[in-house]
């Protein structure tokens, strides 16, 4: 469903070209749950932005359902963001002074959905994330975890095929983070949603079926997780060395 080939993203910093992405190729199938890992500056957020159609690559090809995204104009990209992709940010990005339900309704407004239907769908999405009794709270009246769940409800409200999340647990305590990952696993399992998230936390990453490791704008390797951790499982005492420590991980080096 998602196919990326030789993706390059170059930023100009002064006179220097910085290669945020330096030839990334990957494929994510429908209904997969994938984590993207890498140290800061590895290009994982840049990759997410391009996958979310928020940014455009300098070169390379990006296809969703065999459709080349690079050839779409701005309005077509907006349409893709509205219908195909739900995006969750590290900073939640909820509109201030705006109730949870209105925040969730936002994507539907741009889709020309009637107010009545908007309300129904938003309530439904808030029920999925377990916030049906906080619908009229404003972001500043909600905890970080609750705010992120509102953001997830907003991402889900248009029934997207792909849910993308850039460090969704990065600003949360571990309990709230676990709740968010648990929600992802539930959506993945029950709604057969394709879920891709970026994290720098190996434990959080291992809740998925596949981990893509990025470094310096390149995919270093991919690992297939045989037994993804079920959300709620306590964190092991010592940090798992995600790169080399576990023999039960099937390690594959990307091409």
């Amino acid at each position, binding site marked *: 469903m998602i196919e990326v080939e030789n993706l390059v993203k170059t930023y100009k910093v002064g006179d220097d070209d910085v290669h945020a992405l330096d030839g990334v190729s990957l494929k994510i199938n429908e209904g997969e749950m994938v984590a993207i890992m890498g140290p800061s500056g590895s290009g994982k957020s840049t990759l997410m*932005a391009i996958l*979310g159609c*928020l*940014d455009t690559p300098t070169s390379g090809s990006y296809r969703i359902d065999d459709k080349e995204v690079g050839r779409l104009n*701005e*309005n077509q990209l*907006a*349409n893709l*963001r*509205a*219908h195909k992709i739900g*995006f969750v*940010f590290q900073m939640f*990005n909820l*509109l201030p*002074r*705006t109730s949870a339900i209105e925040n969730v309704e*936002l*994507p539907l*407004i*741009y*889709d020309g959905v009637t107010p009545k239907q908007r309300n129904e769908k938003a309530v439904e999405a808030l029920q999925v994330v377990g916030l049906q009794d906080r619908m009229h709270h404003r972001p500043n009246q909600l905890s970080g975890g609750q705010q992120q769940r509102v953001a997830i409800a*907003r991402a889900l409200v*248009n029934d997207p095929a792909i849910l993308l999340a850039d460090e969704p647990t990065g600003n949360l305590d571990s309990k709230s983070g676990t709740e968010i990952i648990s929600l992802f696993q539930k959506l993945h399992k029950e709604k057969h949603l394709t879920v891709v998230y970026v994290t720098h936390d190996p434990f959080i990453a291992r809740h998925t079926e596949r981990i893509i490791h990025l470094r310096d704008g390149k995919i270093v390797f991919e690992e297939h997780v045989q037994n993804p951790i079920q959300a709620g499982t306590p964190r092991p005492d010592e940090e798992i060395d995600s790169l080399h420590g576990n023999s039960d991980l099937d390690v594959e080096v990307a091409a």
Partner: protein
Amino acid sequence: MNILNNLRVAFRSLTANMLRSVLTILGIVIGVAAVVALLSIGKGATQSVTSRVENLGSNLISVSTRRSFQPGVVGDTSATLLYSDYQAILANVTNVRAIAPVYSSGAQVIYQDKTSNYQVTGINEDYLTVYSYTVASGRPLLASDNESQSKVVVIGSQVATDMFSGLNPLGRSLTIDKVKFEVIGVLASKGSSGFGSGDDVVLIPLQTGYTYLFGSRARLNGKATLSSISMSAADANSVNTVISEVETVLRGQHGLGLNDTLPFSVSSQAQALSTLNQVTSTLTAFLGAIAAISLIVGGIGIMNISLVSVTERTREIGLRKAVGAPRRAILVQFLIETMTLAIIGGVFGVLLGVGIAMIVSISGVIQASITWDTITLAFTSAALVGLFFGIYPAYQASKKSPIEALRYE
């Protein structure tokens, strides 16, 4: 994104910065109020000037000597209006309803112990018709008064008040330059015309004046002279024909060729009116333009605040785009915000402007004329200012890249 939603978003963001919004609106309020007030006052002034001039008499044409003509030349009959000119015009010019020869001269007027100086005017029976005077009491001057050179006088309402202070002037006698005249009529008041009052007139039969009052001043080489000739065209359409006929007659009378400069001005009240109207409309337009400048300054204020708002809300714009807002939706959202500011400013500006115009009217300085045209114009201008000065910030907002906007700190 529908209008209602946009309005809700606009109000939320405008009320979030209440003081800032109010100050921005104030710029538009002042601009619109200035436009409404100044245009209303200007229109009021135009109307009052027009009505006063029309009050002088309808389709009025007057012939007078050009004062600046050939200075220093005395005794030149070619440049002096003569009684015979009047007779020639009377005989030859058609489409004239009434025509009055006028000789006017300053004179001392005495009633008992009261002495005053007035412009005493010798006229014929048509004069009152030409200048739309009506007689309030007594009778007007008749043709027979001129034929018999009666020593009778018709006075304006102001003269009646000043000289007789409440007494009925009819039948009383006024001494004008040592000649006794009997008051036979008092004119109804015309009100001030802005060019000297029409109520302080002293009117006597022209022939009486020539014989007893004006003396040699009114004679040139033995011929009776006139200060002016006033006439009333039969209707508005014949005014121009009458003017050219009069000019032809005058050229013939004074032996002037077609290429010689006519030493008399033959002008219609319509011309005077159109000149006056031109002056007052220019003045009104000028006032309006000054007011429009303040409206534009208000617009710049809107643009400034809108740009600040776009910058402050960069992340919001990024988010809206991330969840699928097309460029147009962002453009419309910010345009509606500036339009909302401008329209609220327009409403309050109209109210303030109408208030100012009313206060000016009540204070009696000038009767302002508040019309729907003015209000619509001012309000529409405000909305257009909002639209015009809103487009750039809204465009700036709409063209932001979603990812850069989201990462904006």
